[in-house]
């Protein structure tokens, strides 16, 4: 399943000298390729998160359309769009996004149970947590985890439904090099198994894992040749 953006852009209200808005993302065309680890790099505030949020269906573009397969994401009703997001797009947001009322295992299983339980959800969640190196923390509440452990839990959660598309926003920010390497390895494997992975990062270490690299600067996305 392909994720494709056609001329998407987004402005935000911000009082300035000459204008009351600023453009976070200029009109952009983009396509995520299956089996490919794509990276978008750029400075803080360049529009990377806004762009990835629009791709995920979390932020409505001011112009343009986002297609998941042949369905225009923002023309669907909330229920359908939410369902597609749950089943086909694994999202790893910026920052710590554990649900602290739930254990690590429940956090991961939630993604699968939201639209009806799957019989092997528990085994699947445990194996994903083990692959992420936190299998022993299944019954721990998410607010008891360290930053690195929490990030790995969110990655496992995003992969729970085997989504063909995985979008990660700064997944390795403020993590040590060992954890970063583990996470990058997980993404690499996921892309190699035929899925499309988009990683938004400004970490140079991540670039060597990518198949395609883009740079976002002042809302303009441009392709960067891989060295």
């Amino acid at each position, binding site marked *: 399943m392909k994720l494709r953006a056609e001329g998407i852009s987004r402005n935000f209200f911000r009082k300035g000298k000459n204008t009351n808005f600023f453009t976070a993302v200029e009109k952009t065309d983009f396509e995520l390729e299956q089996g490919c680890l794509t990276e978008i790099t750029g400075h803080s505030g360049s529009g990377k998160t806004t762009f990835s949020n629009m791709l995920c269906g979390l932020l409505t573009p001011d112009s343009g359309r986002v297609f998941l397969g042949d369905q225009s994401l923002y023309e669907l009703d909330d229920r359908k769009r939410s369902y597609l997001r749950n089943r086909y797009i694994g*999202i790893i*947001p910026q920052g710590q996004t554990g649900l602290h009322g739930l254990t690590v295992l*429940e956090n991961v299983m939630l993604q699968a149970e*939201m639209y009806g339980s799957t019989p092997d959800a528990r085994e699947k969640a445990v194996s994903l947590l083990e692959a992420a190196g936190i299998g022993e923390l299944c019954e721990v509440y998410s607010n008891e985890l360290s930053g690195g452990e929490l990030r790995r839990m969110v990655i496992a959660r995003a992969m729970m439904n085997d989504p063909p598309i995985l979008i990660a926003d700064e997944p390795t920010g403020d993590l040590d090099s060992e954890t970063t390497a583990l996470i990058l390895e997980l993404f690499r494997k996921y892309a190699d198994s035929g899925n499309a992975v988009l990683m938004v990062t400004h970490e140079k270490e991540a670039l060597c894992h990518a198949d395609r690299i883009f740079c976002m600067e002042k809302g303009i996305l441009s392709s960067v040749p891989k060295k």
Partner: protein
Amino acid sequence: MKFAFNVSLKNIRRRPFRSAALGALVMLLTICLFLGAEVILSLQGGLDAYRSRLGADVIVTPSSASAHGSVDDIFLQGITGNYYMSEKDIKKAADTDGVQSISRQFYLTSAKAGCCSARVQIIGFEPETDFSVLPWIKESYSGEIRNGDIVVGSEISVPSDRQIKFYGKKYNVAAILGKTGTGLDNAVFTGYDTIKEMARSAADIISRKEFSGVNIDNTASALLIRVKDGYDPQTVADDINIHITKVQAKASKSMISGLSDGLSGISGIIAVLVGAVWVFCFIIMLMVFALLSNERKKEFAVFRIIGASGKMLTAVMAGETAVLCLAGSAAGLLVSVPLCFPLSDMIHSSLSLPLLMPDGAVLAALCAGAAVIPLITGVLISLASAVRITKAETGLLLREGA
């Protein structure tokens, strides 16, 4: 929706302090609603019991009765004594223009001596003409009141053999009346023939001076009058007062109106206080839920990110609130239901107001209302928060909640 309910329960369990604080707020609201409504209904019940006790349009007592209390006290609180009017005055009153029917009552105070089981007020009525006591008795006892039978108020203690002794003779307790919340709960009722027999025994045993010159067979302590259609009870009462010097007549409406005004005032104050506390709790609930939903923006954004639709998120929020409100309401009822009995007694004794607690069905309806109102309020407030959250763009919500 099973998913939403499970998540709601887990959120509640995982946030014990927050859950307890919200539950306590709902508990306070429930207590306030239940006790406030219960007191208002009890006051109303007391007033209704007074009204039904009166039944008559005009009450006539001998002038000598004023030494024992006002006409209001005699009829509404059951404060009786041994005072009697002459046969001539009874006839004059019955012949007054506008009088449709008349029913006599005979009062006797039992003695605190070996001849009597207890010191109580005994009220004799004429079953064939009565329209005041019998309807009330019929609520508890459908049988006939035979000669020698007595019917007792709810506060009178009845021995296991159901026999109570007055002036050396035992009388059979035919029925125990329902509670009125008035002094009448401590009175004994019987037919006219029986009380005349008691009065004769009283005159023989303790030689009461009140009976000197009284023809027990043809006297009465009070007359209950119904006026003909088109006649004003106050005018009939004034007419009796003008033409019969040894009696005092009072229109029952004027007796109850002062009390009714007083009770309405107190009920109004309680209703305002309950309303004020309710509005106060409502505002606090509104603020708490608004603050909580603001604080939990990121959590809600995460639900949306992993695929929860607006409806699912609303169900999680409303489910959480509903469970907390139900728990808070249940705790509130557990506290307030046992409290309502001593509270009624306290109001009754300290304010000397007639209180008649609602019956079981009304109390059950009050419980349901006191539980459902906070539940609906809480769920509506959380729905409003949910609409605000689900309408916001998740991408922005995530950033605001960061």
